[in-house]
């Protein structure tokens, strides 16, 4: 079986993935998430922000936060995580959130690595 440990086994995969998780971006398309999704339905301009990643055993926590008023005037219903070359790695859909000039939206997401036989 695959060995587990800080830098072995699944954590080796984790360490390979973590460097390509760089940015998060909001969108306004609330259609259902599919495994084949490759990106935002409708991006909201200016909401691309660097994310903070935290590694834990067999997983990565991703924290994203807009600055005050970012995307104001739009309604957010989706979020993606990008590599710096804009390849989307993860899409999440949520109930509509209207963005105002006094709004700060933050999203905390977790990726976990699972081993299947």
């Amino acid at each position, binding site marked *: *079986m695959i060995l587990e440990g800080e830098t072995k086994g699944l954590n080796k995969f984790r360490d390979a993935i973590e460097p390509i998780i760089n940015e998060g971006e909001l969108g306004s398309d*609330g259609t259902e998430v599919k495994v084949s999704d490759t990106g935002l339905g409708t991006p909201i301009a200016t909401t691309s922000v660097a994310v903070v990643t935290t590694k834990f055993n067999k997983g990565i926590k991703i924290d994203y936060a807009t600055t005050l008023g970012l995307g104001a005037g739009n309604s957010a219903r989706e979020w993606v995580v990008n590599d710096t070359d804009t390849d989307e790695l993860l899409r*999440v*859909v949520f109930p509509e*959130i209207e963005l105002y000039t006094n709004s700060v939206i933050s999203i905390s997401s977790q*990726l976990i690595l699972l*081993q299947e036989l």
Partner: protein
Amino acid sequence: MASENDILNNIVTNKQNFASGDIEEDSQVELFMERVRIWNKISRVNINGEERAVIVPFSTLIETFDTEYDIDGTVDNPAEFDATNSRYILMADANANRKVLQSEVVSFRNNVSVDSINISVEVEDSDGNDASDNIIIELYNGQDWVLIHNNGTLHFKDTQGQDLDADLDADLGERNNSWDYDYQIPKWDNKLKYRITRVGTGTYYVSKVIMDFATIKAIDAYPEYYRYLYNKRLMDISDNHATMYVKMHETEVLTSEDDFTKIRINSDETLWQPTDMIKYFVKTDSNAYEEVTSLDTDHTFATPGKVISLRVILIGNGASSTYVEKIRIIGTI
């Protein structure tokens, strides 16, 4: 990097070695045959510090207890986190009564109906035997805790359906509807938690919880022209309530290629004083505004049109203590 053919050929070679009993190659076969899945466990969406949504993708929560992120540590007698072994320990000793393992809120994506929830818990005693009989599992629907056995499924029924379960009272059955009568918000609030409680005095190890929101599906009956405005529309002006004010909010809420003939509005209102008032007006296209005099009742437009705008007027001196939120709008073509 190896091509797909290289990998396939290698697997075939390893399989042949496996047949011939080569131990070193056997282990490689096992490596090849294992799959690693990257799973988005949970996403928590906050606005201005308030948790607004907790999304479990693809209708399944897999909790492997590698962190304490999604466990509520503020409950009485919380379970002990064992980071080394990725598990929680339920036990009683001279130092503490570790009795309860309770999750933070989880929920599923928007605009869906759920028929049932299945929960399975991996729990063992010190000898590695299944300890399901030594725990109580409960699910929280936003209003009540509902007992469920391990690997059990909790079924939800619609308002016209039969009771939720013969063992549950009718009131609870009604509140467990996936959606309320006008498709506004999940009646059980979509604020799901699970709670695992130790029974007796033994020591038990909880290593995994899997929750499946089974038969989840898009809402067939969900109105095509629907808008949900969650944010508050405030008075936001005040001089210590000495003067009467009027505050107006206007929003374009629905558009269609065909003419809207009717609209229905519902909302949650909060008034600082009973004398404060909240009034709703709607218009189509650039026609004149018409007052919607009754909430949750169809209003027929004098002049149908393709774009509906909503005007909310707050009258009074309640300042930010008077507001309207969660405005639900259904347009009919």
